[in-house]
């Protein structure tokens, strides 16, 4: 999937978002802004952890809620000459961007409150694509199995959110990077394989 296709992909994906979804994104951004700014009083690690959780929720919502959640099952995509892994990589971009926007809003809130200058603030930005990647697998499942993937996505976010609270700055960053790389790779591969196996008969 080249740059032009990826850009078209994000535009098409974004156009599927309803006004309610857009309102949700803006609201979540405002919540992230105020939460990060307020939590700074209790220290940067707590603020980072809360922001990572908010980014995780944004990623799960953007990946699985409403029309965004039906995108992976769209015949327009399934009929395209792409392998599952290529489709999976392209599908991760839009929900990750939404979650990134949430993390960015929170970080901006922290900067405005006089904090946000430590490298620890990278953790929420790592939690966003990881949660989106794990949550996307829910879109190809129904019922309890779909719920399981949402819970797994939340668990991955919790895991990353716990790092700033339990490790030092370097440990948290290294742990977050390692977890995102390993879990993200496994989740992306699993989603790609699920897409390759998926048939629209249901």
């Amino acid at each position, binding site marked *: 999937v080249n740059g032009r296709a990826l850009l078209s992909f994000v535009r098409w994906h974004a*156009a599927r978002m309803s006004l309610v979804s857009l309102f949700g994104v803006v609201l979540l951004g405002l919540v992230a802004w105020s939460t990060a700014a307020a939590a700074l009083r209790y220290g940067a690690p707590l603020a980072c952890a809360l922001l990572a959780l908010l980014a995780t929720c944004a990623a799960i919502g953007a990946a699985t809620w409403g029309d965004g959640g039906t995108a992976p099952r769209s015949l327009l995509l399934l009929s395209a000459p792409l392998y599952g892994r290529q489709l999976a990589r392209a599908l991760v971009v839009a929900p990750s961007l939404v979650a990134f926007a949430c993390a960015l809003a929170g970080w901006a809130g922290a900067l405005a409150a006089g904090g946000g200058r430590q490298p620890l603030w990278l953790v929420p930005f790592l939690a966003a694509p990881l949660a989106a990647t794990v949550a996307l697998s829910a879109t190809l499942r129904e019922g309890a199995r779909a719920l399981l993937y949402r819970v797994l996505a939340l668990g991955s976010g919790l895991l990353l959110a716990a790092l700033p609270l339990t490790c030092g700055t370097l440990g948290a960053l290294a742990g977050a990077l390692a977890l995102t790389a390993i879990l993200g790779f496994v989740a992306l591969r699993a989603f790609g394989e699920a897409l390759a196996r998926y048939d629209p*008969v249901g």
Partner: protein
Amino acid sequence: VNEPPALRVAAASFARAGRTLVAAFDLLVARGERTELAQPSTRAASIAASMCAALVKPSAGAVYVADYETRLQPAQAKRLVAFVPADVEAYARDFPRALALRAALLGVPAELAARRAREVEALLGHGTYARAVALALCDEAALIVLDQPPPDVARAVAALRPAAAVLSTSVAPARERRSEPAPLEART
């Protein structure tokens, strides 16, 4: 030159949860040929069309688009297929962006895709079905699969793309009805 048929179905069937949804059938569609495949129900027709378009893998037997077996080489097979589903509302939703996306995925220049879409709309009108066909036909496909199209659409599409094989599904008790290729004067 020995050109492979656009579509070859060898005893392909589809079953789900132990229930046969599409009985085994054989089919050979050469390039430039228009064929109608009848199935006993709308669901069976949709599944058969999806199997021929490399969207659904057969439970038994094999489907070949040109030389590509759809179970083993789905991406290569899909590259040669233009598929128009029966439910065109969802498929053709947000048409301009969908067309831009499909053109980008197929590596077709945006202007060329827009021109081809205008050609289709000039032929079929500006309804949702025409937009769905325009989406599917934004590239030069060797095989065009129409799932339960409205009357006369398959003939119009065959006239628009005379070099391609056109397969349409329908609901009828008959197993398969093969029609003659579109006359040359109708193809231009």
